[in-house]
């Protein structure tokens, strides 16, 4: 019952006119951003974050807006996947497999509607699990001391390294780069300046926003420019087909399974929508053995599974972010950074001390998903028409927004130069097949990790064995070793074929 009254508090926050407007605006913008080819949720949230910060929104409203963009973009990603065969981001790749064949058959409308319903069911299911799990997890996390946090982060980075990106070693390097960036600036323990190169702008650390926008948005513009070819993409017509009751009955268990899979993969630190949708798709294909010929040729089960899963994982990824302060994906890492900018430290106490933020966000997500279903069923035509916006009109706006956003934080041109340099760096990383999310996770978690490590060793007087002093820490250590070893074992057992293919798909 406690949960219900907490949820009621949340709805009272979400129903204020400003927040209601921001939910709707965020969901609409998110769907739009997600549906534009090439610009995924991460870029959308990154570009809007400095603006939300500079116009002085209260923290819970800013978070509600950014979260709306995040899961709105997970909905929107399917539009370009289905109609153009161009996924908006990695999480939408699996949607192209069965979505595009359907739209080529003239069933674009049916595909869009099924995916909207699956997305909705996935989100709502995951939100319910979130309402149940988040308070439990935060009760567990209240007993976490510095040593537990250190081991938890080790576990998060291990999960990240073995499950995200093309090669574990590259993910590890990306995380280390992020951690190194986090050490720049004045050391809070002793006041010593570290790695500032005598540049005053670095004295209080490398600005999180500048890194996020540089590494993601600026490098994205460069990638779009590189891939640009002088012909317009062909949008397959939506047609008059629509989802039938029989369709939904046929995929109801598929959606349920995919929701559970997606949610728990989302909760795992570091693993986001791309892995969730891939695993859900793979599971359904195996479940349908003997009847799986249609997969890849336009089977509605192959469309519903990844869509339910990637939306469920978006909600799941919020759980560790809110309860432990450890983001479950690249985009939630940015949301975490946003909270830190507002001087709010997510963690077990967030639910008790700032219920308006934690529960307000959760309540707003319920509203947002209903709004998204409405946006995505009757109003789908609007977004489809927006698909044909030409890049020559879109890119100048994106470049402008990145500059306006970064300049508005400090009013200093230095940040703009630094942002462009980081953009070049991000572009190089992408061309070498490094994923960028680990860099951001390292940057966001670096300070917390170091602080907790130093506190732990202060407690033990320099004895490192304190890191394995209790049941929780030992459990996390074992989990880390398993996360490191299991993927390799599984690969051995199952043979290389499928995993390698999956990796190659996620890689791009």
């Amino acid at each position, binding site marked *: 019952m406690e949960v219900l009254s907490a949820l009621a508090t949340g709805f009272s926050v979400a129903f204020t006119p400003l927040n209601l407007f921001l939910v709707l605006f965020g969901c609409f913008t998110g769907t739009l951003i997600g549906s534009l080819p090439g610009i995924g949720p991460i870029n959308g949230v990154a570009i809007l974050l400095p*603006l939300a910060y*500079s*116009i002085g929104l209260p923290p819970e409203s800013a978070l509600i807006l950014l979260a709306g963009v995040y899961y709105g973009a997970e909905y929107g990603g399917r539009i370009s996947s289905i109609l153009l065969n161009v996924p908006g981001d990695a999480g939408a790749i699996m949607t192209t497999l069965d979505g595009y064949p359907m739209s080529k058959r003239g069933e674009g409308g049916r595909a869009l509607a099924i995916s909207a319903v699956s997305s909705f069911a996935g989100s709502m299911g995951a939100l319910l699990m979130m309402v149940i799990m988040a308070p439990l997890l935060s009760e567990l996390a209240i007993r976490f001391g510095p040593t537990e946090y250190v081991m938890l982060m080790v576990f998060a980075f291990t999960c990240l390294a073995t499950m995200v990106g*093309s*090669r574990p*070693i*590259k993910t*590890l*390097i990306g995380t*280390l*780069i992020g*951690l*190194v960036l986090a*050490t720049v600036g004045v*050391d809070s*323990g*002793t006041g*010593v300046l*570290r*790695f500032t190169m005598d540049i005053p702008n670095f004295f209080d650390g490398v600005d999180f926003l500048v890194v996020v926008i540089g590494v993601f948005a*600026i490098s994205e*513009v*460069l990638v779009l*420019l*590189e891939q*640009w070819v*002088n012909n317009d993409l062909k949008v397959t017509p939506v047609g008059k087909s629509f989802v039938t009751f029989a369709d939904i009955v046929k995929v109801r268990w598929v959606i349920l399974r995919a929701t559970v899979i997606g949610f728990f993969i989302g909760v795992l630190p570091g693993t986001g929508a791309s892995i969730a949708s891939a695993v859900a798709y793979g599971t359904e294909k195996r479940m349908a053995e003997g009847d799986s010929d249609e997969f890849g040729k336009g089977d509605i089960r192959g469309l519903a599974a990844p869509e339910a899963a990637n939306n469920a994982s978006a909600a799941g990824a919020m759980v560790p972010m809110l309860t432990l302060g450890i983001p479950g994906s690249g985009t939630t890492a940015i949301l975490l950074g946003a909270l830190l900018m507002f001087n709010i430290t997510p963690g077990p106490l967030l639910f008790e001390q700032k219920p308006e933020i934690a529960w307000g966000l959760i309540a707003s997500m319920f509203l947002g998903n209903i709004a998204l279903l409405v946006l995505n069923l009757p109003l789908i035509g609007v977004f489809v028409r927006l698909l044909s916006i*030409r*890049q*020559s*009109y879109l*890119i*100048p*706006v994106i*470049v*402008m927004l990145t*500059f*306006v956003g970064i*300049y*508005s934080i400090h*009013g200093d*041109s230095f940040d*703009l*130069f630094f*942002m*462009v340099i980081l*953009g*070049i760096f991000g572009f*190089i990383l992408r*061309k*070498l*097949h490094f994923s960028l999310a680990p860099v951001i996770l390292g940057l966001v978690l670096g300070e917390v990790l*170091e602080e907790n*490590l*130093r*506190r732990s*060793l*202060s407690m033990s*007087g*320099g004895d490192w064995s304190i890191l394995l002093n209790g049941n929780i820490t030992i459990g996390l250590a074992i989990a880390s070793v398993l996360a490191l070893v299991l993927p390799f074992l599984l690969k051995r057992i199952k043979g290389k074929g499928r995993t390698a293919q999956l990796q190659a798909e996620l890689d791009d």
Partner: protein
Amino acid sequence: MYDRIFAGALLLLSGLIAWAAAQFDVPFQYEPLGPKAFPYILSALLAVAAVWLMIRPSADGWKPTKEVVLRLGGALVLMYGYAFIYEPLGFIIATAVVGGVFSWLFGEKPIKAGVYALVMSVVSFFLLTDLLQLNVPVGTVFGG
């Protein structure tokens, strides 16, 4: 090959981190680790990872054509220039010029691109300053 070059740079970086950390002048410190230990750990891990990558690099996947390199170079010069003129010339002029060239880089005809960028920059200036009340530079050359 790219991976090897990058790994070499990382190795250099890890050395620099360790060297710079060793130079920190720590006047007092109450805890056993202090500000140097974490950078040392990162530097060591980075060095190991870099050597690993050097031994087992991935195949080079990126083979841009001359035109792509030119366009990318152009975009970089453009963004750097944008950062350079953003404050002195102000938002409207800088955005109109840079936005126009970007629109042209993405295939728009020059005149249409220019008109579009001019309209975009003027409209967004008033949206950003009046509606969102953001800190948008008017241009120091105009005394703003």
